[in-house]
């Protein structure tokens, strides 16, 4: 069977190469998506495991270690503990670089919670320090370099470390270094690292920790899961998007492979009929087809996946480094091998199944032609005939008529046309998604609306002016926004931000619900996850808030929300029971509003508006890395698009070889042929583009948003310009495909085509 398959492939060398090119292009997408997706999706867990990241990190005001340890060691489920003293805003200088935002962690023994990737760990001697990898990269630090800490202390770099409890400098504003205890002898601690025997029972440990924390100021717990969420809030929304995008790209590539393989078999139905007529059994035909498909798919997929992985490995590693995470290294081989197996399986199954199905029909029926299912349903309007219909050729515009003819050629075999359109549609959908993602990333940087805040401006105006503000063109809504720095009245050292709007606050701020429901009355409150963790709040429990006025107000917790602001130590309610607070007006703009005009109008009302901040980094390097990753995936998808178009056109040209030869025999020149082929290409490309946009709007966008929307509601819809760009790009690709195929067609003697006809 293998020999026969090889002979078959050799006999159809160019077609086999075309098929292999298709598999390679799709596998390129698979390789890039797998590399990016796997690296990012598993980055945190992998790094947390290798860096021995604690299961719980507790921050509090400095406390004597003995007192502290007495409480900590009594906690249930505790496997190990260690302490640090974190000094913030320490000036750091090295290699001509300087920051006054140094975070100096005095390591007070015990397990570290970081992984030394270069050099060695602290030995306990004074004058040593370990720097965070991000800082080392940014400042080009190496083991042996000297760094000035504070104004006079100088220490030598003995190691470079990674700890995924925060993103890396400079994505994180603080540059972190670790120093031994002797750097500042007799330190108290303000950071406790806890490792648990069963991390899934962390909430039980936290309950007990809260119960014994009286007197600890500004206590804040972060679990490993919480770190993941915090990272997600810092930069991981982008990561989630990329992972989600990779998953969609994988699904799309699978669809394209299946469609391509299926179409290839459709084209070869005649040959299958001959084989059946010669007495070859359906099973053997199926086996032969499977072998041929495997012989094409395995090397092409391996090469494509490898190329894809190599193409994005660098940017993906840089992205991981920016997040303080470790690259997957050899661990990536397994998923890549898995995708190779999956690609091969898809191609083989998609090629074998229709071949086997077709081969089970009587040979005569197969030889009579047509697709498997639609042979009897072909329209009589020329779908089954090679001759161009006179009626299909408008007299007024020969070019348009030829293009229409080409379109009819392309759509005559419905199943194959649909497969081609599906392939192009999926590709176009992925490209549209990428464009939408790119603009989303920009909005994440500039527009807080993407993560729950739906207002763009605030103005220190009297609430009575709300109606006037709403009347400003471009303003969608405006309402008083009350803000108070409250404290839990049982733990005055637990401050939080209390935000209140009259009526439905989700018109202005709608962080996603993590538990419970939205508030419905002035007695209820929605709390951020950070606050809920600190106070052990759940839907149904009570929150006692001490206001700046000294008044205590109790609320029933209606929901817990994933809020970014103030580390999640924030709560939303209605202002009815809050007294003595002066609100500002929150202003929500229309989609296409002229922001400058609205700002001018607000100024005229008496207060210059303040913009609301964005949600992700403006770090150029980080965004540059993201762009490189997206470009890598986009290039692969573009190649698939081109392949699919070329394949569709080549098949059409092959099938309509006689008709095209007839046209040429009747005086049709290269232009005529190009018009026919362009029509055929447009018949695939235009519906494919429209399908792609529809797919992005209805499937890919919502799917990616849902996958990535652990903590935010993300609008991933393309703009009109982006849709136009996709359509134009596809048409350009169609033009390129037309040119390629037309060249080949014109090289063939007219007689050859006519003879076949």
């Amino acid at each position: 069977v293998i020999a026969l398959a090889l002979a078959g492939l050799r006999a159809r060398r160019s077609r086999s190469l075309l098929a292999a090119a298709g598999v390679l292009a799709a596998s390129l997408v698979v390789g890039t998506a797998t590399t990016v997706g796997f690296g990012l999706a598993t980055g945190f867990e992998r790094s947390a495991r290798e860096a021995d990241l604690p299961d719980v990190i507790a921050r509090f005001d400095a406390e004597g270690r003995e007192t502290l340890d007495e409480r900590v060691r009594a906690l249930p489920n505790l496997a190990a503990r260690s302490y640090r003293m974190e000094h913030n805003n320490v000036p750091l200088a090295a290699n001509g670089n300087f920051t006054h935002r140094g975070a100096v962690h005095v390591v007070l023994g015990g397990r570290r919670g970081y992984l030394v990737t270069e050099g060695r760990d602290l030995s306990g001697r004074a004058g040593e320090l370990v720097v965070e990898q991000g800082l080392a990269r940014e400042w080009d630090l190496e083991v042996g370099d000297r760094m000035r800490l504070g104004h006079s202390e100088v220490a030598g770099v003995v190691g470079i470390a990674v700890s995924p409890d925060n993103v890396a400098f400079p994505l994180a504003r603080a540059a972190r270094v670790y120093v031994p205890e002797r750097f500042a002898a007799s330190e108290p601690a303000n950071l406790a690292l806890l490792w648990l025997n069963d991390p899934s029972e962390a909430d039980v440990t936290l309950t007990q920790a809260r119960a014994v924390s009286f007197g600890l100021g500004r206590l804040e717990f972060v679990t490993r899961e919480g770190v993941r969420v915090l990272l997600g809030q810092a930069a991981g929304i982008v990561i989630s998007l990329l992972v989600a995008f990779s998953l969609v790209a994988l699904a799309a590539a699978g669809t394209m492979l299946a469609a391509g393989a299926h179409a290839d078999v459709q084209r070869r139905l005649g040959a299958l009929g001959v084989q059946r007529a010669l007495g070859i059994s359906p099973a053997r035909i199926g086996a032969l087809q499977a072998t041929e498909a495997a012989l094409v798919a395995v090397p092409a997929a391996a090469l494509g996946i490898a190329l894809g992985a190599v193409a994005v490995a660098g940017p993906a590693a840089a992205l991981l480094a920016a997040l303080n995470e470790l690259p997957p290294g050899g661990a990536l081989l397994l998923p890549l091998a898995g995708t190779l197996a999956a690609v091969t399986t898809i191609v083989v199954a998609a090629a074998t199944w229709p071949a086997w199905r077709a081969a089970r029909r009587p040979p005569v029926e197969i030889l009579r032609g047509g697709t498997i299912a639609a042979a009897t349903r072909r329209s009589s309007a020329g779908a089954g005939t090679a001759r161009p219909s006179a009626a299909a050729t408008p007299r007024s515009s020969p070019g348009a008529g030829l293009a229409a003819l080409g379109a009819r050629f392309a759509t005559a075999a419905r199943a194959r046309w649909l497969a081609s359109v599906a392939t192009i549609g999926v590709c176009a959908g992925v490209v549209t998604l990428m464009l939408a993602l790119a603009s989303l990333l920009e909005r994440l940087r500039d527009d807080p609306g993407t993560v729950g805040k739906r207002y763009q401006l605030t103005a220190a105006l009297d609430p009575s002016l709300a109606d006037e503000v709403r009347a400003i063109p471009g303003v969608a809504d405006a309402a008083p926004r009350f803000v108070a720095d409250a404290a839990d009245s049982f733990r005055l050292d637990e401050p939080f931000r209390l935000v209140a709007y009259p009526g439905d606050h989700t018109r202005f701020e709608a962080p996603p619900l993590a538990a419970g429901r939205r508030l419905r009355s002035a007695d209820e409150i929605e709390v951020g996850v950070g606050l809920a963790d600190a106070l052990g709040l759940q839907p149904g429990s009570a929150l006692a808030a001490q206001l700046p006025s000294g008044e205590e107000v109790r609320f029933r917790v209606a929901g817990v929300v994933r809020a970014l602001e103030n580390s999640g130590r924030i709560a939303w309610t209605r202002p009815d029971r809050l007294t003595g607070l002066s609100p500002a007006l929150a202003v929500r703009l229309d989609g296409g509003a002229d922001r400058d005009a609205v700002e001018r109008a607000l100024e005229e009302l008496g207060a210059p508006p303040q913009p609301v901040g964005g949600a992700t980094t403006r770090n150029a390097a980080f965004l540059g890395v993201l762009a490189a990753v997206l470009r890598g995936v986009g290039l692969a998808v573009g190649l698939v698009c081109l392949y699919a178009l070329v394949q569709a056109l080549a098949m059409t040209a092959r099938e309509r070889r006689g008709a095209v030869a007839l046209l040429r025999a009747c005086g049709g020149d290269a232009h005529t042929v190009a018009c026919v082929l362009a029509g055929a290409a447009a018949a695939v490309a235009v519906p494919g583009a429209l399908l792609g946009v529809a797919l992005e709007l209805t499937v890919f966008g919502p799917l990616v948003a849902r996958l990535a929307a652990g903590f935010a509601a993300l609008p991933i819809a393309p703009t009109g310009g982006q849709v136009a760009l996709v359509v134009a790009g596809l048409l350009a690709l169609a033009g390129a495909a037309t040119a390629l195929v037309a060249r080949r067609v014109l090289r063939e003697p007219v007689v050859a085509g006519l003879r076949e006809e």
Partner: protein
Amino acid sequence: MRRAAVAGLVALAVAGCGGEPASAPSATSTLHATLVDRDGDGFLERGPGEPLTGPEGGRVLATFGQLTDAHVRDEESPARVPFLDRLGPPLTSTFRPQEAFSTQVLDAAVRALARERPQAVVVTGDIVDSAQENELDQALAVLRGDVVRPDTGGPGYDGVQEASNPDPFYFRPDHDAPRHPGALAAAQRRFRAAGLPVRWYPAVGNHDVLVQGEVPATDAIEDVAEGDRLVTGLDPSFQPPTLDEDEVRTLLADGELFGRAETVPADPARRHLAPADLVERLAAAAGVRPVAGRLDYTFDLGAEVRGIVLDTADRAGGSRGVVTADQLAWLRGQLAGDRWTVVFAHNPLEASDGGEAALELLDRTPQVVAVVSGHRHRNAIERRDGYWLIGTASLADFPQQARMFRLREADGGAVLETWTVDHDGLGLAGTARELAFLDAQGGRPQGLAGERSDRNVRLFVQP
């Protein structure tokens, strides 16, 4: 058929009269199996038992059990000070996550101990938590096998552990991990207790006669206890450490509890019993005769063993035990004769005022086998000259164990076999033990279960 039934009843009666226990330990005996946290996740699993080792000894002279420090409490009482718990040591026993389930735990321990088939059970004090009459009613109902009514005040739970309490320092079973929704409501439901099937003998503990085990009841405290103002939290501006035990005592004695308060239904059954009233009720329930207003008495454990119960609770206040000169004289009089003697008291004598004199007296008495106490909530066994000082863990804190004893003849003396008994963990008692184990101020971190040599051992006595 009838003859067989009679034979069965006779067999049960013989067993109930305190013969030698069956050789196979019961399911709750730690000789067979006990509870351990093998994986360190904070939750207990069934683990291997801790069988007795060494020469077994001969004929059984007596078999008896001990329950101690049940701290049956009215957790809804306004006279409680659970908010002091957050200040840490030495005030860590004013609130326990499992405190609403004290009657259920005592009932589970009674059931477990009954399976060990003791001749008698000694309840070594702190049977209640704060000297309230309704607490004693509940505790006695459990021991007698009556219907127990744990709910006090108004119907349902009105206390600091309600889910609606915003104070994060209290464990709120309805929404704090590990969640036990509905447990508080279930704890208020009346139930019929199993009851001890054998005679039981009480000793008085400081919590039986003093408010919170610390101060004698005053009119002011009475007003608080029977009132409708439940103080639930400290003034939030209050910062430790400025409070010591003396300040707490003063605070309690004045009845001026500070901090935030809730209104709860008043309940006159929360009155505090005068020590004499308590002694009288305990004596009546157990069928013993007190001496001069204190619950000092003796009882027989079969023909060859005698028990002596000392009342060590200091009526003047404070948790430290006391043995008065009169008690010492009375004790001296009880030590005559050649029967094996076991002394029971709530407070360890070695940590009681006048206790050392009592111990010296016992040192000179060769028939003394052991001094058995509670109070410290800790399993502990120490040798003292010719006899043993045995402390037993409480039912209030982890490990919530009772203790069994079996005295046997041995060459040249006697051997006292002792082993701990886990309660059966059924229903809310199981929840209580889970929470007691997790409690970061409770018996687990304090190591109250002791070492194996503090639990299941054979102790030799040579007169």
